[in-house]
């Protein structure tokens, strides 16, 4: 059947519009649904009290702390290595076999599914190194997961710092390291921070890797060797064991709101960063 091209285009365009509308609708639906059912559950006591009776009652305070602590440890470990790698690749070397190996390592790491990280973290940190289910095990595992993201975004941020800045710094008698710390990093900071915020977003929602390394203890973590439950893990357990639907919705709402805030933050930072250099 040979259609007039204009007619064909009209039909296709309509079909594409429908598909796009469906996709956008799905997104909006998910967010609205979770928020509608979850926000009513969110009150001050929900956010500030610990779970009671395995989560049937009380709030999610300890899981919020657990999430924050775990994410903090992960970023603390991954950021220096990630930014350091990015600095090395852009400022201290030309493209050669070494850089290709480094990039290959980072790319592969980025593609590994979270359950494998969970397996690995379990066997190495929890068992072999004896850290047990702990913030340390979870933090280390998460750090490995977010490392490629930090490398990639830091590298892009550093690369977009104008070459003339480097030239000027050298011509005024700086060492390379002084140039990196006093000129390049401050200029690339918004981009680097964006990457870290993105990684934080990923860590907040991560479940498979965390549940096998940080465990699911409901108490507040007292040290990095304490086991701790994150919001995502708590949500999973609530939903799967059918413990409390309303608390599950509440936790889900917090998770979704966190993602929204993080995305808005990164979007805003990126706009600011781009505007600075154009």
């Amino acid at each position, binding site marked *: 059947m040979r259609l007039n091209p204009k007619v064909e285009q009209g039909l296709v365009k309509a079909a594409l519009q429908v598909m796009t509308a469906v996709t956008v609708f799905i997104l909006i639906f998910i967010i609205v649904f979770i928020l509608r059912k979850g926000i009513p559950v969110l009150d001050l006591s929900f956010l500030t009290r610990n779970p009671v009776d395995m989560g049937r009652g009380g709030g999610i305070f300890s899981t919020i702390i657990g999430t924050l602590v775990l994410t903090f440890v992960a970023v603390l470990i991954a950021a220096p290595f990630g930014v350091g790698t990015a600095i090395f690749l852009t400022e201290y070397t030309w493209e050669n076999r070494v850089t290709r190996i480094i990039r290959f390592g980072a790319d592969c790491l980025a593609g590994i599914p979270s359950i494998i990280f969970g397996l690995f973290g379990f066997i190495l940190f929890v068992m072999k190194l004896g850290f047990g289910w702990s913030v340390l095990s979870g933090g280390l595992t998460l750090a490995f997961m977010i490392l490629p993201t930090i490398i990639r975004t830091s590298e892009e941020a550093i690369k977009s710092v104008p070459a003339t*800045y480097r*030239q*000027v710094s*050298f*011509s*005024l008698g*700086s060492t390379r390291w002084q140039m990196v710390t*006093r000129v390049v990093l*401050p*200029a690339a900071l918004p981009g680097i921070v964006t990457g870290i915020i993105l990684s934080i977003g990923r860590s907040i929602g991560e479940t498979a890797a965390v549940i096998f390394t940080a465990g699911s203890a409901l108490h507040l973590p007292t040290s990095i060797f304490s086991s701790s439950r994150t919001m995502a893990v708590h949500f999973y357990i609530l939903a799967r064991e059918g413990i409390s639907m309303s608390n599950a919705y509440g936790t889900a709402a917090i998770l979704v709101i966190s993602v929204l805030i993080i995305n808005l933050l990164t979007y805003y930072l990126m706009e600011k960063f781009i505007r600075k250099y154009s």
Partner: protein
Amino acid sequence: MTTAIRVKGFSHFFGSAQTLKGIDLDVLKNEILGVIGPAGSGKSTFLGALNRMNDLIRKSRTEGVIEIEGKNIYDPDVNVAELRRKLGMVFATPVPLPRSIFENVVFGTRLSGSRDRARLAEIVEDCLQRTSLWEEVKDRLDTSALKLSGGQQQRLCIARVLALRPDFILLDEPCSGLDPISTAKIEDSLRLLKRDYTIILVTNNTKQAARVADRTAFFLSGELIEVGPTDKIFTAPDDRRTDDYLRGRFG
């Protein structure tokens, strides 16, 4: 007049391409040496060889000697960072760093560890005075340097170099993007600055060299064709090629 820089048989290569061919040139103390020549003649490379900025480019290689204060600056035990503080460089496009005016001027000074705010403030005022920028910005030293006009930014860059207390000032086509008034201001500053500094000015504007330089060197295709008092170069050059260039027959 004493010799401040002695260039002896100096050649420079980028990979296999030779950009400077056996340059023999003396730079005299407290003079303004103009360096003229068509694009690609090696003028900027020559400047970059003096403060070893060329070292930063991949596959850069040199032969020959450049002596400053009797020492070859290409000796392996020369501290390159110190060298660059002695020979301050100003680029064709003004590059203010994304900082305040004050912080821009003291950037180089801070690199060597100076932190006394009072001392730094003195340095800032002194250097901005010398570049005729002080009156224009003294009330807004803490505002961003990026907000200055092109001419002001370039004078800021010169002030930034002066803050290092260099012996030499190297300028690579500093007025190429600037309006005539800013250009005039910078040329006036240079005339005053030569009392305390030795200045090498690369320019593709021969009239600027005629206005400002005591002696002028003419480069062509990586070779130093001729160097001498500016008056002589412009009225009765020894070499035919110099004459052709100045008359606009090429370049």
